[in-house]
C-alpha cells in the first residue's frame, strides 16, 4: 500500500503538490495552532473556518457568472477569513458578552452564503463537497505558489513577534500593564489564524480545519514545556499526519482529508491514554509538581 503511494509520488506531480501542500500547511498549523490553543480561541478559529465557504462561493460565482477569471476561490477564502477575524475580534474587544453570538452568526451566515453562491454557479455544485471536506489531490502549481506565500507570511510574522504573543497569551493584563498594545496583538493573532485556516482548508476542508489546528497541538502539549517546543513538535507531527494520511488513503481511494483527521484523532487518543500513567510515574518523586 505504501509502495503504491511512493510510486505515485515519484510519478505524478499532483501527488508531489499534495505532499508539499500538507507539509507547508503543517508549519503554519503548528506555529499558529499553538498560539490558538494556549490563548483558548479555538472556537474563534471554528467560526472563521466555516464562514470561509462564503468567500469561496462568492469568488467562484463571480469567476464563472461574471467572468472575473482572475479571481480564484482561495482569494475569496482569504478575504472572507480576514474580514471574519477582524469582525469577531473587534466585537469581542468592545462587547465581550456578545462574542459567542457573533462567532455563531459569522459561522452560519458564511456557510449559508457559500451554499447560495455555489448552487447559483452553473455546473459547479460538486465543488461544494471538495470545499467542505478538502481536496488536497487537486492542488495546482498556482495554488501551491499562493499557499507557499501565505505560509511564509504567517510563519514569519508569528515568529518575529513570538515574545509579544507569548506575553499576551500568558497574562494579557500584565502585558497591558507593561505598555503592550494587547488589542493590536490579539487582532493580529486572529488574522494569522484566518490565513492559517485558509491554508488548512485546502488540505482537509472547511469542516475539519479545527481538528487539524488543535489535535497535533494537544498531542504536543503532553510533552512540550515551552511554547516553541510545542510549535516545533506539533508542526512535525502535523506534517507526518498529513503525509501518512495521503499515503494510507491513496491505495484504497479513501478521502485524504478524513483519513488525516482520523489519524490525528487516533494520535491524540493514544498519547492521552498513555501520557497519564507515564507522567504519574514520573511525578511520584516530586510532591510539589502540579499542585494547582
Amino acid at each position: 500500500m505504501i509502495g503504491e503511494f511512493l510510486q505515485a509520488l515519484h510519478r505524478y506531480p499532483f501527488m508531489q503538490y499534495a505532499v508539499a501542500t500538507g507539509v507547508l500547511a503543517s508549519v503554519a498549523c503548528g506555529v499558529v495552532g499553538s498560539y490558538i490553543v494556549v490563548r483558548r480561541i479555538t472556537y474563534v478559529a471554528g467560526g472563521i473556518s466555516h464562514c470561509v465557504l462564503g468567500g469561496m462561493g462568492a469568488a467562484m460565482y463571480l469567476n464563472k457568472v461574471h467572468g472575473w477569471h482572475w479571481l480564484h476561490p482561495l482569494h475569496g477564502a482569504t478575504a472572507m477569513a480576514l474580514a471574519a477575524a477582524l469582525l469577531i475580534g473587534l466585537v469581542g474587544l468592545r462587547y465581550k458578552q456578545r462574542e459567542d453570538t457573533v462567532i455563531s452568526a459569522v459561522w452560519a451566515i458564511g456557510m449559508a452564503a457559500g451554499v447560495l453562491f455555489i448552487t447559483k454557479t452553473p455546473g459547479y455544485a460538486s465543488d461544494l463537497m471538495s470545499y467542505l471536506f478538502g481536496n488536497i489531490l487537486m492542488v495546482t502549481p498556482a495554488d501551491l505558489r499562493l499557499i507557499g506565500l501565505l505560509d511564509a507570511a504567517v510563519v514569519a510574522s508569528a515568529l518575529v513577534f513570538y515574545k509579544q504573543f507569548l506575553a499576551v497569551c500568558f497574562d494579557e493584563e500584565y502585558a497591558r500593564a507593561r505598555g503592550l498594545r494587547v488589542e493590536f496583538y490579539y487582532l493580529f493573532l486572529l488574522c494569522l489564524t484566518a490565513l492559517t485556516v485558509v491554508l488548512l482548508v485546502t488540505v482537509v476542508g472547511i469542516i475539519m480545519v479545527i481538528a487539524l489546528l488543535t489535535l497535533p497541538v494537544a498531542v504536543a502539549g503532553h510533552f512540550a514545556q515551552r511554547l516553541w517546543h510545542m510549535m516545533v513538535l506539533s508542526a512535525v507531527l502535523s506534517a507526518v499526519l498529513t503525509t501518512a494520511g495521503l499515503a494510507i488513503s491513496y491505495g484504497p481511494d479513501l478521502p485524504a482529508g478524513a483519513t488525516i483527521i482520523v489519524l490525528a484523532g487516533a494520535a491524540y487518543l493514544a498519547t492521552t491514554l498513555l501520557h497519564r500513567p507515564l507522567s504519574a510515574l514520573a511525578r511520584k518523586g516530586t510532591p510539589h509538581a502540579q499542585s494547582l
Partner: protein
Amino acid sequence: MMVGTPRENAVNDPPVIELNDVWFSYDGPPVLEAVNLHIHEGDFACMVGPNGGGKTTLLKLMLGLLLPTHGSVRVFGAAPHHARRRIGYAPQQSQFDPRFPASVMDIALTGRMGRTRLFGPYARSDKRAAARALEEVGCYDLRKQAFPSLSGGQRQRVLIARALASEPELLLLDEPTANLDIKVEGEFQELLRELSKRLTIVLVSHDVGFVAPFVKTVVCVRHRVSVHPTSQLTGELVSELYGQEVRMIQHSHDCLEGRK
C-alpha cells in the same frame, strides 16, 4: 516600629503615587469613594481591607489598567500609563492557565516588555536583567523548569522576579502572600524586606496579620480609604475596618491550614 532607611526623609519630595478625590465604579455602586492617597518614595505601604473593599481596584487604578470615574491618579507626576516603564507589577497568581507551556525564564522575560526591542527575540541585556531578577528572589536555579510545575511560593517569587526584571522604581504587589503556608510566608517577608531597601512598595493583602514590622504605612481600604502609620494600628482600628469579620481574620492561618 519604623525601620530606618536612607530615604526616611524623602517625605517632603513630591509623592510617587498621588490620588486626589478618586471615585470608581464598575457599572454599579461606587467601589471607591473620595479617595485621597499619597505614597512617598521609599515607603512600604500595605493596603488591607475586606474582600470587595476595593484594594485590587485601587492597585489597577495606579497601573492605569482602570480609569477613575472621577478624580485624578498621578504616578511619578504623570498619568499612570506614562509611568508604566517605572512600575513593576505582580498580579494575583490564581489567574494563570495551570498548563501553560513556558519555563520560569520565559515568564521572567515577559517583564522586559516595554523595555525590549520590538522585533525578534529578546536581547542579551533582557536575558541578563531577567537572570538577575531571578537570582534576587532565589529562583535562578529553577529557570529551566516549567512554570506550572512550581509550588505556589515559588510561582509567587517568579512573578516578583518578572516585576523586578523591568527594573522598576515602584513595585505593586497584589496578594503576594495568598495561599502560602506560614513558613514560606516568613521567607517571603524576608525577600520583601530586602526589596524595600531600594524600592517603593505597595502591597495588597486581605490578611491584616501580614502587616509586618517593616511595613511603614497601612492603607485601610473599605470603599473609603484611611491611612495610618503602623504604630497606630490597634485592635480597635482593625475591628472598625473589618467589623464582624475580625475574628475570622485573626485565625486566618489556622483556617488556611485546615482547608489544605
